[in-house]
């Protein structure tokens, strides 16, 4: 039975201590997590979440290169654009941008979105195609010139049934 220490003048009762084993376990756990975080920052990438690098806004943008913004849209028969990359089919713009290489390889993925959109919006006009469009804003010395260019990166034409 250990002997209790004298009461600390600032507290009603002495702090609850940890056993040496409890301390050791906690220090070991902290060391493992720290090592993983450090390794993730040094060599890892987003795939290693939650230990990947904290790369929010970490890439350097060239002050004279264009700023690129991507959107995914569905096209109706009348040529109207319906935005799909603002959460309309459950995916965010950044998620579309993250999977852009995959979508380029397999544009059929865009077709699945048209189906998901039709399921979620039964009254909406029918889509005839889905496009990934990239808008480039010109930048000179870090200042926007006001000019922009749109370019279609990937297009998937939906098979028309009775159209």
């Amino acid at each position, binding site marked *: 039975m250990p002997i209790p220490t004298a009461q600390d003048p600032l507290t009603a009762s002495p702090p609850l201590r*940890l056993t040496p084993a409890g301390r050791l376990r906690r220090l070991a756990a902290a060391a493992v997590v720290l090592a993983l975080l450090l390794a993730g920052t040094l060599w890892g990438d987003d795939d290693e979440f939650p230990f990947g690098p904290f790369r929010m806004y970490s890439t350097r943008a060239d002050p004279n290169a264009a700023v690129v913004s991507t959107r995914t849209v569905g096209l109706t028969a009348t040529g109207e654009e319906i935005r799909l990359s603002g959460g309309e089919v459950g995916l965010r713009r*950044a998620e579309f941008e993250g999977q852009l290489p995959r979508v380029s390889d397999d544009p059929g993925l865009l077709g699945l979105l048209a189906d998901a959109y039709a399921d979620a919006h039964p009254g909406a006009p029918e889509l005839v195609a889905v496009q990934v469009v990239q808008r480039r804003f010109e930048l000179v010395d870090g*200042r926007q010139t006001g000019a922009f260019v749109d370019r279609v990166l990937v297009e998937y034409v939906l098979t028309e049934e009775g159209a």
Partner: protein
Amino acid sequence: MSTVDAPPAGASTGTGRVTGGWWFRPVPLARIAVFRVIAYLFIPVDVFLTTAWVRAHADVPPEWYQPLLVGRLLHLPTPTHTVVTVVQWMLVLAALAAATGRAPRLLGTAVFLLYGEWMVIAMSYGKVDHDRIAFLVALAVLPTIGRARFRDRRSSEAAGWAMAAVLVTVMLTYFLAAWAKVRFGGWDWPTGSTLTRAVLRRGTGLSEWTLELPWLLTAAQWAMLVLEFLAPLMLLVRSDRARIGLVLFLLGFHVMVFAGVTIIFLPHCVAILSILPWERLTAGRRPEDAALGGSMSSGPGPARG
């Protein structure tokens, strides 16, 4: 469990600090009791309100699921509509139960595991967010403390370790972010137009004027990089006043970013709240406390030598 009421031999004032003493500076259990309620009640807010896009993944065609490493290692299920809905409700119910303070180890562990799965569902669609690690660590360490009541006047080393772990992770979120900027952007990251790009893509009425002043955004980039590298200094906070000041500074930064580009690290902000001396609200002030004023050390344990 590993918490004992009496100090083990040699672990009292002086010698106990030899091994990792900084990690075990006692923290009042009342602080844990308050922070735990905040952390667990934040989860339903997070699920239904502030990051409702995670729930939206229920309706995404499963072909779009791109599992993270952890999802592949643990063979986690593909988030079909059913999987997402079940995890969502189990998580919310577990969090509400844990917020009552009952069965803190069991319910806390359940919340941590379910929230971890929720994060896999969130981050496996092509975009990983970086605002969660401190909150995840908070959820991981809270169950290790055990019982903590609002009016508990005792402090505990187990609570001290848990709060130290959250503080270190909050710090690392900034420090390692600076490191990542140098790794991916290079040492000339601050002279780039990263903020211009951010404002162009997601600017608000409160930030678009900065596009006319590229030097201002460059200066802000320098300030961000320098301050992030200085983040380890926040580990020195000890007094209640310093804690409150630090929290206001950090939350101020995140509110400013939100005003500018509508991005807020909300779970990270909740983790930041663990730094505050919440025990002041609940434990009631004793005469000694009032006489000693706000700058006293918050840990009632022995003062640092």
